[in-house]
């Protein structure tokens, strides 16, 4: 069964993988576990892994790959090692959906929220929405998750030579409708056209400003043991809808994107549960990514009960066929809230009181140990870890 058995036929030319040898050498330099001999070997390994995970982010790849845009570990590394490293400041370091900006002082002080997001979804039109609606709702939601009331947004277009004008009209009309529905105005903008083949029809960037009228402090680091995790409705509709709309899979299902402006929902939630620790809309990377961010920022563990996570049967079925976990699939109109236990009932009632939250559910809770970890109690009755996503199951979903 080994090389020797086969005689002279085996290719003898061989080389080494330089990158792998280097990675091994680096890991070996970290040295043995002095002073940790009392731990079992498995525990020592786990500690070593913890240290490896806590290492400073680095981008080793010589070129950007699609994983850098997937919202998982590679995206986090890219942001930490390249953007944060260059732009570092206390506001940016929080890596929240929207930055907090204060204008004026004393009683004249106004607290603003400021955010930006780009949209490259393919296809541009999909059941339940299109890139224009997404571009408005996405930015409205980033402001809403900061506890702000959206005021104004900008719209930047990168159009490809040859893009049908009628399609642009459609996109712009749905942006106008979405802005009206969300009570925001599009007050500034920009247009660029690139040569045919240098863009994919139409990309949109939006930025938004909102005003933080509530005295709430939302920060993933505030999550504490005992807190309750809520989602505002069935997860994964948007990601699966867009995936199926590409027509590459010959699967069809009766689902539409969940894209929606969530500012009214967050307002109702924060009125009912002002001690809410954190809000996030579950876009790229899905609910699992958000929960990992919360666990990492607050140094707590999160235990999710798979059975209580709302997922439509169509989404479950399609995910099962595609071999992906709905917990990682993007939504565009669902939020995750972390709420202290005493306000959990009020928060859930507030979500249920709004049409966009009528499918809301408690899906898990925060515990103390093991810090930084998201655990899932499976429907089958077992347990497993839900880690940050690696690789990209569904590129260009928003």
């Amino acid at each position, binding site marked *: 069964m080994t090389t020797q058995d086969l005689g002279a036929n085996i290719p*003898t030319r061989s080389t080494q993988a330089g990158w792998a040898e280097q990675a091994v050498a680096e890991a070996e330099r970290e040295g043995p576990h002095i002073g940790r001999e009392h731990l079992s070997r498995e525990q020592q390994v786990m500690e070593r892994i913890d240290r490896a995970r806590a290492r400073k982010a680095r981008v080793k790849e010589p070129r950007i790959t699609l994983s850098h845009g997937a919202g998982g570990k590679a995206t986090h590394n890219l942001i930490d090692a390249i953007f944060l490293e260059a732009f570092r400041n206390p506001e940016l370091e929080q890596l929240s959906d929207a930055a907090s900006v204060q204008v004026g002082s004393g009683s004249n002080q106004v607290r603003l929220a400021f955010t930006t997001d780009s949209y490259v979804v393919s296809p541009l039109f999909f059941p339940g929405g299109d890139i224009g609606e997404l571009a408005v709702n996405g930015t409205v939601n980033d402001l809403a998750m900061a506890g702000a009331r959206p005021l104004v947004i900008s719209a930047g277009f990168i159009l490809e030579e040859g893009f049908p004008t009628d399609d642009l009209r459609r996109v712009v009309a749905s942006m106008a409708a979405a802005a009206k529905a969300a009570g925001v105005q599009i007050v500034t903008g920009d247009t660029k056209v690139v040569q045919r083949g240098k863009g994919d029809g139409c990309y949109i960037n939006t930025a938004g400003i909102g005003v933080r009228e509530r005295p709430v402090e939302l920060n993933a680091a505030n999550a504490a043991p005992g807190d309750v995790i809520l989602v505002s409705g069935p997860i994964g509709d948007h990601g699966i809808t867009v995936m199926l709309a590409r027509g590459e899979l010959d699967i069809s299902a009766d689902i539409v994107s969940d894209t929606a402006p969530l500012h009214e929902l967050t307002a109702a939630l924060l009125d009912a549960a002002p001690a809410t620790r954190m809000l996030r809309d579950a876009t790229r990377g899905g609910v699992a990514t958000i929960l990992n961010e919360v666990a990492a920022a607050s140094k707590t563990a999160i235990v999710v009960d798979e059975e209580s996570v709302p997922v439509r049967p169509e989404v479950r079925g399609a995910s099962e066929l595609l071999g992906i976990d709905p917990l990682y699939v993007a939504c565009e109109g669902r939020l995750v809230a972390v709420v202290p236990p005493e306000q959990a009932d009020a928060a859930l009632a507030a979500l249920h009181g709004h049409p966009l939250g009528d499918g809301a559910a408690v899906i898990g809770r925060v515990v103390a140990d093991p810090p930084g970890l998201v655990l899932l*109690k499976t429907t089958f009755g077992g347990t497993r870890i839900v880690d940050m996503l690696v690789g990209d199951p569904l590129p260009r979903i928003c």
Partner: protein
Amino acid sequence: MRFVDEFRDAEKARVLSARIAELCEPGRQYKFMEVCGGHTHTIYKHGLEDYLPETVSLVHGPGCPVCVIPMGRLDDAIAIAEEPDVIMTSFGDMMRVPGGRGSFFDSNAAGADIRMVYSPLDSLKIARQNPDKRVVFMAIGFETTAPSTAMTVLRAAAEGLENFSIFCNHVTIIPAIKAILDSPDLRLDGFIGPGHVSTVIGCRPYEFIAREHGKPLVCAGFEPLDILQSVYMLLLQLREGRCEVENQYARVVPWDGNPKALRVIGETMELRPYFEWRGLGFISQSALQVREKYAVHDAERIFSVPGVRVADPKACQCGEVLKGVLKPWECKVFGTACTPETPIGTCMVSSEGACAAYYNFGRFTRERVKEATRA
């Protein structure tokens, strides 16, 4: 979801779990190998080990199609992808597998045209749409996926699509199991047989395992209750002193396999004299190549393939993990140099790989997980 939920019923699992515990002889340790990566994935995804007594351990075998591809072979594929006018197509799992000089993803970022497909037929579609390009399908997998590759070659031949070829890396399961059985440092009590492969080859080819090597094998389905039941059936054989091949997955697996699928494989492919397996080394008669008759669809004949072996780093112990000699965490580089983001060994790349499954789904000691999830 019908036909799925029935096989994930926690109540039935509890009953099975109790029966499994009853069958274990006190003081005896049991080691069963699940050969197929699909089983490894199910075990971790559903947290199935929580239902097994501590004396029963599952060893993750070599049946992950991505994990067994050696780095040199991937370099060959990338060399093909970098030839002029080539569109390389691949299953998504393969995209992140690192070769000696990077992965398909890296090569794509550097300018090659490498596309993810869900089926070889999608690749054929790309060939039809791009008559001026040479479209290559990176064919990987055991007997499970070989029939669909074979069908695609036949269809390409029927349509005269001469710009379509496959880079054939199909492997066969029996020589891999033999390599494991011959490994001196292994102690196993039985096998959980690969259900999907068996839909094609049937159960008969495993009979030598029971007859000559004295190890029972139960061919198993892919839902968590399937695997629990298979563990139960293996323990029952041991308790009753039997040593047989049994078919737990009879709802899908015919005892004699699928003659039609075997016929199309035989029509288009033949055994290679030898093939390198990651971690297991060169194994004779263990992989398939395209027959001469379909040479026009064989990338290895069309392109010049470098064929340079890439040695695994010494610290990488994929081979021991694949053979079940080491638990994933016992490998020297597990979780430090080798992580799902920067996998050194292929066991860390595919979600079916033993290391990636362990890293993602079971990284923390069971005691802490149990404590945290106690209601």
